[in-house]
């Protein structure tokens, strides 16, 4: 590794300017975008207030379908949140050299998807002002949370994951905040100085930063797995046909990672286009994410088939009726789910040409996100609509109030991301710099290849 060449070749000043384009002076387009998103969020909030004042009757929910799109959206957003931090942690631990440009965007996606997802149980509970019943504190009600309920496990797990993901996001951002501080002027300098906590890049700081990053990555992986397992157990613990299955926890984790990777591809393709990051976010990152998507599509198909097969063979009438309804009342949704998640997406993802084409991979990822949302609805609704007593069977379709709140939630996610990209480094500048520093071009015969220098593991201290 010829250090002197690399520091000169990297030119950190130019790299910083290239990677921090999202922080440039605010344009009219940005204000317009933020105003539009804010309007949709406000519309969603207005509909929520209307629902709160009028009652849950304004939704499409009715016996026996008392869980609708709010719960499906909760599962969807929590699932979407998974890949950000999880992928970032796995890539950090395995020292995947292509990881650097996708870390920050993916981690931010996790944090905002969790924030949005966490709102849905609160929207769903009906008497929303009593949400504090879930908080354990001594009070005159003498009514304590029931920790034997999976819903309380959810509350504990999601809060842990949210705090963990925010910590992971912030800690990883500290060197970049220090870079931003040293380049910024005016109020931004004060802002970044406060957030960088005095990080300067001493040898002592770097060594400990890497060890801490590795520990965070190790800790966040089991937390991420546990969170979506618990979301799966929300369903599996109930004696409801179609839900009461031991396979639900790993099936949910797989689905979460699947939709999360698709979300990361969409976010990365958008950032690449909007902030002209073509030099940093290259086809390599997208192709590798495409390979992961391909694997997860296969795994998702396997889990779905395994779940279906046991019900099909057993022909328990209660459970079979749920599956039969897939081919009747819920056929369009079923086809969207199975087509987008496996039948169409898997063969496409097997093609190198699709994986290496960013627009094509983005379209496939969008398909998967739609397919996974359909899957969440297919999990929640048919099981309740065909629950035990045939005399109360009833189908469900969301009302305009629910659609408005869903649109508001999506706009909130986009708004949070837009604001984050304006004020914070959206690319992991330091990780990219470090990778450039460690690489060199090496001639092998007639071709030039990228060669990566890695420090030997001396057993003294870690490298993330």
């Amino acid at each position, binding site marked *: 590794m010829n*250090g*002197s060449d690399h*520091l*000169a070749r*990297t030119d*950190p*000043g130019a790299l*910083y300017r290239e990677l921090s384009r999202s922080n440039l002076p605010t344009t009219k387009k940005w204000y317009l975008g933020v105003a539009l998103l804010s309007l949709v969020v406000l519309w969603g909030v207005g509909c929520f207030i209307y629902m709160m004042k009028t009652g849950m009757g304004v939704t499409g929910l009715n016996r026996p379908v008392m869980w609708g799109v709010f719960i499906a959206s909760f599962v969807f957003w929590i699932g979407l949140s998974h890949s950000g931090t999880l992928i970032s942690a796995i890539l950090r631990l395995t020292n995947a050299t292509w990881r650097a440009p996708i870390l920050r965007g993916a981690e931010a996606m996790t944090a905002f998807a969790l924030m949005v997802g966490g709102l849905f149980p609160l929207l769903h509970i009906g008497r929303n002002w009593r949400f504090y019943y879930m908080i*354990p504190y*001594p009070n005159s009600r*003498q*009514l*304590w*949370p029931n*920790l*034997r*309920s999976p819903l*309380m*496990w959810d509350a*504990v*797990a999601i*809060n*842990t994951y949210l*705090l*963990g993901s925010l*910590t992971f996001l912030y*800690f990883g951002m500290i060197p970049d905040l220090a*870079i931003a501080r*040293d*380049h910024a002027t005016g109020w931004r300098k004060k802002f970044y100085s406060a957030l960088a*906590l*005095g*990080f*300067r*890049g*001493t*040898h*002592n*700081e*770097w*060594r*400990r*930063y*890497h*060890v*801490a990053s590795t*520990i*965070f990555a190790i*800790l966040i992986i*089991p*937390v991420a797995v*546990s969170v979506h397992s*618990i979301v799966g157990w929300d369903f599996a613990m109930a004696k409801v046909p179609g839900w009461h299955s031991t396979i639900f926890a790993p099936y949910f984790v797989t689905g979460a990672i699947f939709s999360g990777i698709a979300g990361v591809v969409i976010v990365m393709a958008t950032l690449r286009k909007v902030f002209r990051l073509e030099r940093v976010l290259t086809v390599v990152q997208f192709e590798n994410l495409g390979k992961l998507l391909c694997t997860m599509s296969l795994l998702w198909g396997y889990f779905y088939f395994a779940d279906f097969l046991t019900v099909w063979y057993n022909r328990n009438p209660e459970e079979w009726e749920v599956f039969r309804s897939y081919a009747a009342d819920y056929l369009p949704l079923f086809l969207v789910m199975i087509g987008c998640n496996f039948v169409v997406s898997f063969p496409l993802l097997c093609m190198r040409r699709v994986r290496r084409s960013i627009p094509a991979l983005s379209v496939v990822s969008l398909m998967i996100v739609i397919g996974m949302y359909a899957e969440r609805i297919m999990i929640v609704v048919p099981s309740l609509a065909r629950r035990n007593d045939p005399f109360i069977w009833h189908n469900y379709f969301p009302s305009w109030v629910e659609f408005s709140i869903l649109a508001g939630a999506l706009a909130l996610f986009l708004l949070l991301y837009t604001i984050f990209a304006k004020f914070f480094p959206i690319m992991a500048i330091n990780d990219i*710099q*470090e990778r450039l520093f460690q690489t060199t071009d090496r001639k092998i015969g007639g071709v030039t290849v990228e060669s990566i220098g890695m*420090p030997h593991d*001396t057993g*003294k*201290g*870690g490298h993330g």
Partner: protein
Amino acid sequence: MSGIVVVGLFDAVDPAAAAARALRALPLPEGDVTTLSPMPLPDGAVCRDPRGIGFPRFTLVGWFAGALAGLALALGTYLLYPLITGGKAIISVPPTLIVTYEVAMLGALAGTLIAGFWEMGLCRFRTRLIHDPRIQEGKILLCARVSGDEEARRAMDAMETAGGTDVRPEEGEL
């Protein structure tokens, strides 16, 4: 690490490493020579960190503290509001394990964060710290803590000989 620190800017790793070798030969203790760089340099490339990294043990401390808190939350809730629901025992083991695990992981994350910040020496807002923003242009700031004018002069000579620019003594902490 407070007092007089001699600093010098280097354009590349190799001259900085040569200067660091010269400083250690003065002799300055290994722990008194360090770098400020825009990206991590392998340990030993320019200087070596003789101190062990101790904060990971606080990850374990945090984990156990969190586990105790989770256990107390679960057991306390059962005992303060002993209502049988769903045919489950008042003190049910699986939910207790789940709650304990989640709070334990939260404790481990918090322990790592707090101890990591402390050991990295962050959040010293009232202390004058040695810093040069020019490292963000790709330069390396070599720093040597010295005692006395004679040692400072020899350290500055060593840095200048190795190709350091803007070599100067500064008052502050590393």
